[in-house]
Each structure stands twice: as structure tokens, then as C-alpha cells.
């Protein structure tokens, strides 16, 4: 089981799911119409490190985070 957290303005509770790659997470999240906009503009971190491939492997207990567009300052 891995968890998916939605940071900042996304306003969704943490999800838990079975997934062994980020691609599998993407397939699940694409089923949720309320996430359509965020899937297109969010960066993704696994265990608080930004990642750049859907082939990123996931293991039990991993945390996937979605980071929407930022504007600090």
C-alpha cells in the first residue's frame, strides 16, 4: 500500500492504494474528474523527492505527493 497526498490548494484527503509504479498511480488518479486540472499542472514527488518518470518504482509505504503550481514570496 502506498499513499497519495495532495498539497496546497487541491483540497483532497490522502488516498491509499496498491501500486508498484507511478504509472499505475496516474491511471487511478485519471479516473477522478476533480483531479483532471491538477494532473496536467502538478509536479510529483516520491518520499519528498521530485521525480521525472512514470516508470518510477514504488514500494510498500511510499508517499506520492502532488505539487500544484507555486507562488511563494
Amino acid at each position, binding site marked *: 500500500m502506498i499513499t497519495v497526498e495532495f498539497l496546497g*490548494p487541491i483540497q483532497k484527503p490522502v488516498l491509499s492504494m496498491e501500486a508498484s509504479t507511478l504509472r499505475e498511480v496516474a491511471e487511478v488518479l485519471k479516473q477522478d474528474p476533480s483531479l483532471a486540472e491538477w494532473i496536467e499542472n502538478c509536479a510529483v514527488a516520491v518520499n*519528498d523527492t521530485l521525480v521525472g518518470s*512514470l516508470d518510477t518504482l514504488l514500494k510498500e509505504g511510499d508517499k506520492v505527493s502532488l*505539487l*500544484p503550481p*507555486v*507562488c511563494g514570496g
Partner: protein
Amino acid sequence: MLELHNGALNVPEILARWYALEASSNYGAYIPFVGTVRAEDAIEGLSFDVYEPILTSWFDAWVAKVAPLGAVLKMAHSRGDVYLHESSYIAAVFSPKRRVALETIDAFVEDFKASAPIWKYDLKNGQRLYALDRSTAIVGAGLLGGNV
């Protein structure tokens, strides 16, 4: 040094404290950048969410990047609500030579705006509205949609 504060930053206290910390460190330049909430579009203020784990690793990477130049970075940012004419962000660089400090503060603040995991909201009519139109997608965004 990375500081997160609830609400507005106490600018005089932070700048003076940072100055005192490095006053005897033999730096020739101290360049602070102070970000202040301006009155525009009828906002009452701004509000911020901060994701500390990735903010910390982003900041630590910058500290390591400028260390070979002899530069030291400090940064403070607000969490929660900050009202008009208050400060939500201070960045500062100390370095032996002014050119390194000037170039570092420019590059650091620009990368902060593009990369630091902080989300801004307008406080307007009692609502907290995500400022999407002023926000920047982090490099690599769209991965889940296959857009990278």
C-alpha cells in the same frame, strides 16, 4: 538558515538578528530582499501554505551550491495570513565580495519563485482564493498526464 513564521514577518527583528549573526564573519556584503504585500485587486491580504520537507531540501541544495563561492543564504517565510504592507518573505545573502552577493540574490529569489513549494492565496471578501494565475508550474509538472 531557513525560518518559517506563523503570520507576518517581523522585518526589523529578522534583519538585525541576521546582521548580528554575521557581523564578525568578515563578509563584505549583506544583501537582503524583503517581499511586502501590496494593495492590489481589492485584496485584504495574502495567505500561504508551505510544504516544509521539500522546501528544506530545495533550500539546502542552494546552500550547498553557493558555499564554494563563499556565500551564505538566509531565508524567512510566512505561513498563514499576511495583511497589506506586511512582509511574508525575506531572503538574504552574505558574501566576501559584492558581485557574488548581487548575482546570488537574483538567482536565488528567481528560483524561489519558480520552485519553492509554497502556495499563495488572495484574501478577498472573506474568502481564501488560490492565486493560480500568478503561480508557476514546477519543472516536470504534468508528469501524471504524460506531458513530460
